[in-house]
C-alpha cells in the first residue's frame, strides 16, 4: 500500500448566495502520483485544488494533506503551505523584486535560511528551469513562459512534497506552452513529485498523468487511467466534454 499524501472526504463548498462550488467531493492522492483535473469552466476544479492548501475555505467535509487536518482551525496553515507548492494561472511573481529575490523571499523570511544558502539554492532551481542567466532581471522583463518557469522554481524553493498547478499554461501564448510543460514533465518524471494539475492540455494529461479526473458542476464525475479515460469514457457528461474539446 502506497503512502497517501492527500485525502479529501465529502468536501462541500457553498457560496453565500447558495451556489455550490463543490458538492461532496472525495479524493485520494498517493505519493508520486500525477493527477490531472479536467472539466468545463465553472465545474469547481480550481476551487477543489485551492481547498487543498486552504486558499479557499470549505463549508463541510474533511481534508488531510501530509497528515495535517486542513479543515481544522488549529492547524498551522502557514507551515503546511511551505510543504505544498502552488503555481497560478497568472504567475503572480512579485514585480518589485528581481527573479532571484522572488525565489529567496520565502526561504529567507519563513524558513530562516541564511542569505548565501538561499541564494545558492535559488540559482540551482533557476538553472533547473533553464533560466539561470535571468536571475538579475525583474519579472516584467521576461516572457510569459519564462515567468511561469520562474514561478515554478519559486514554489519549489521551500522543498514542497506536493505541487498544485492551477491552469499553469492557460494564460500563455501558444508557443510558450511547451517550455512550461517540459519543466513540469521533468519534475514529475525525474523528480518523482506528487502533482495535482488543473489543465486543459489533454496531451500533457495523456502523457504524464497517472490518473485523470473529470469534474462537472462541483462533482467528480469520473476518474481513470489516462489511456482508458480518453479511449473509453464511461459517463455521458465525460463523453460530451471530450467530444467538445477533442477534434
Amino acid at each position, binding site marked *: 500500500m502506497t503512502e497517501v499524501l492527500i485525502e479529501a472526504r465529502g468536501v462541500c463548498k457553498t457560496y453565500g448566495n447558495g451556489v455550490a462550488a463543490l458538492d461532496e467531493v472525495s479524493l485520494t492522492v498517493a505519493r508520486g502520483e500525477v493527477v490531472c483535473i479536467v472539466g468545463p469552466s465553472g465545474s469547481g476544479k480550481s476551487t477543489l485544488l485551492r481547498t487543498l492548501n486552504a*486558499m479557499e475555505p470549505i463549508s463541510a467535509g474533511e481534508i488531510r494533506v501530509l497528515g495535517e487536518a486542513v479543515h481544522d482551525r488549529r492547524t498551522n496553515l502557514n507551515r503546511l*503551505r511551505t510543504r505544498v507548492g502552488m503555481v497560478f494561472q497568472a504567475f*503572480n511573481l512579485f514585480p518589485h523584486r528581481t527573479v532571484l529575490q522572488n525565489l529567496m523571499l*520565502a526561504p529567507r*523570511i519563513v524558513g530562516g535560511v541564511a542569505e548565501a544558502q538561499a541564494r545558492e539554492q535559488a540559482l540551482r532551481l533557476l538553472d533547473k528551469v533553464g533560466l539561470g542567466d535571468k536571475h538579475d532581471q525583474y519579472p*516584467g522583463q521576461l516572457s510569459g513562459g519564462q515567468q511561469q518557469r520562474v514561478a515554478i522554481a519559486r514554489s519549489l524553493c521551500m522543498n514542497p512534497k506536493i505541487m498544485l498547478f492551477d491552469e499553469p499554461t492557460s494564460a500563455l501564448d501558444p508557443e510558450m506552452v511547451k517550455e512550461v510543460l517540459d519543466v513540469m514533465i521533468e519534475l514529475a518524471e525525474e523528480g518523482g513529485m506528487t502533482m495535482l494539475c488543473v489543465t486543459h492540455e489533454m496531451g500533457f494529461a495523456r502523457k504524464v498523468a497517472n490518473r485523470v479526473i473529470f469534474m462537472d458542476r462541483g462533482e467528480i464525475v469520473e476518474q481513470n487511467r489516462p489511456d482508458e479515460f480518453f479511449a473509453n469514457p464511461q459517463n455521458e457528461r465525460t463523453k460530451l466534454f471530450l467530444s467538445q474539446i477533442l477534434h
Partner: protein
Amino acid sequence: MSPADPGRAVRPWGWYVLYAAVMVALGYGVYAAAQRVDYNWHWERIPQYVVSFDGEEVVAPFDGFVKLADDGRSLEVESLRTAERVRIDALDRVLSGDGDLVFEGDAIAMRSGIAAGPLVWGLWLTLKLSALSLLFALAIGVVAGLGRVAHNPAARALSATYVELIRGTPLLVQIFIFYFFVGTVMNLSAFTAGVAALSVFTGAYVAEIVRAGIEAVPRGQMEAARSLGLSYPQAMRHVVLPQAFKKSLPSLAGQFINLIKDSSLVSVMALTDLTKAGREVVSSTFSPFEVWFTVAAMYLLLTGALSIWVRRLERRLAHD
C-alpha cells in the same frame, strides 16, 4: 507633432513665447492694479525680515548683575541668588551698563553677523511642524489603512469611524479642539498640539490612499505570498505594501503638499509659523503686499522641494 494636422510643421517655442507673454501680462496686471490703489511698494523693507544683518542678541542666562570688563568686548553676569558667575566674550556691542540688574532672557549685548530673520524662523517652524506631522501621519495612515482592508470587523469599523470623523470636520475646528481640549486635558505644548492635530488630520487621508493602494495590488500577489507560507503580516510587509506604496506615491505626495499648506492654520495657536511670522512682519512694516508675496514664495520653496524629491523617488522605483 499634433496628430490633428499631420502635414504642418510644428514650432513648439511659439507656445513658450505665448506662455511667457501671458505671465508678463499677468504680472503687469498685478502691478497696474496696485498702482490704481496708490500702493507704495517698499520691497527694500523685506530682506531684513528674511535675513537680519543686525547681528544676534546675547541674552542673560539667569537673573543677576552685569559687570563690564575693561576691554568693552566682554562682561560677566553674577547670579542674583546663587554664587554662579558666567563670563561672556567676543561681544561687538554691549547694551547694558556696569552693575545693571538683568533678568533671564534680557538682551545684554550684540554680536554682529548674519542671523535668520523672523520669516526664516517661521519657515523653520513650518518645516519642523510639517516634517514631524508627515512622519506621524504616515504611521497613523498605514495602520488605519491596514485596518480598512483587514478581515477583523472591529478593526474595519474603527478605521472607518476615524476616517469619517476626521474627513467630515474642518481642520480649523480640529485644531481648536486639539489646542483647547486635548491640549488642556493632556497638558500639551502648542507645538505638540499642532503636530498632533495635523498628523491626525492628514493620517485619515493617508489611510484612504493606503487603502486604495493596497486594493490596487492584484489579489494574486497576496495569494502567491500566502501559498509560499508567509503569514498575513509578512505578506503585507514584504509583498503587498511595497507595491501599494509605489502605486500611491503620487497621491501621497499631493497629500503631503497639502499638509505643508494646511500647517498655516496652526498660526491660530500661539505658534509663530511662517504665516504667523508674515502677519507680525506686516504689522511692523505696513507692507502687506510684499510680505504676503514673500511668504507665498517661501511656501512654494517647501512644496516645490517636496515635489522634486518625490519625482526622483518615483523614477528610482520605476523598474517594472
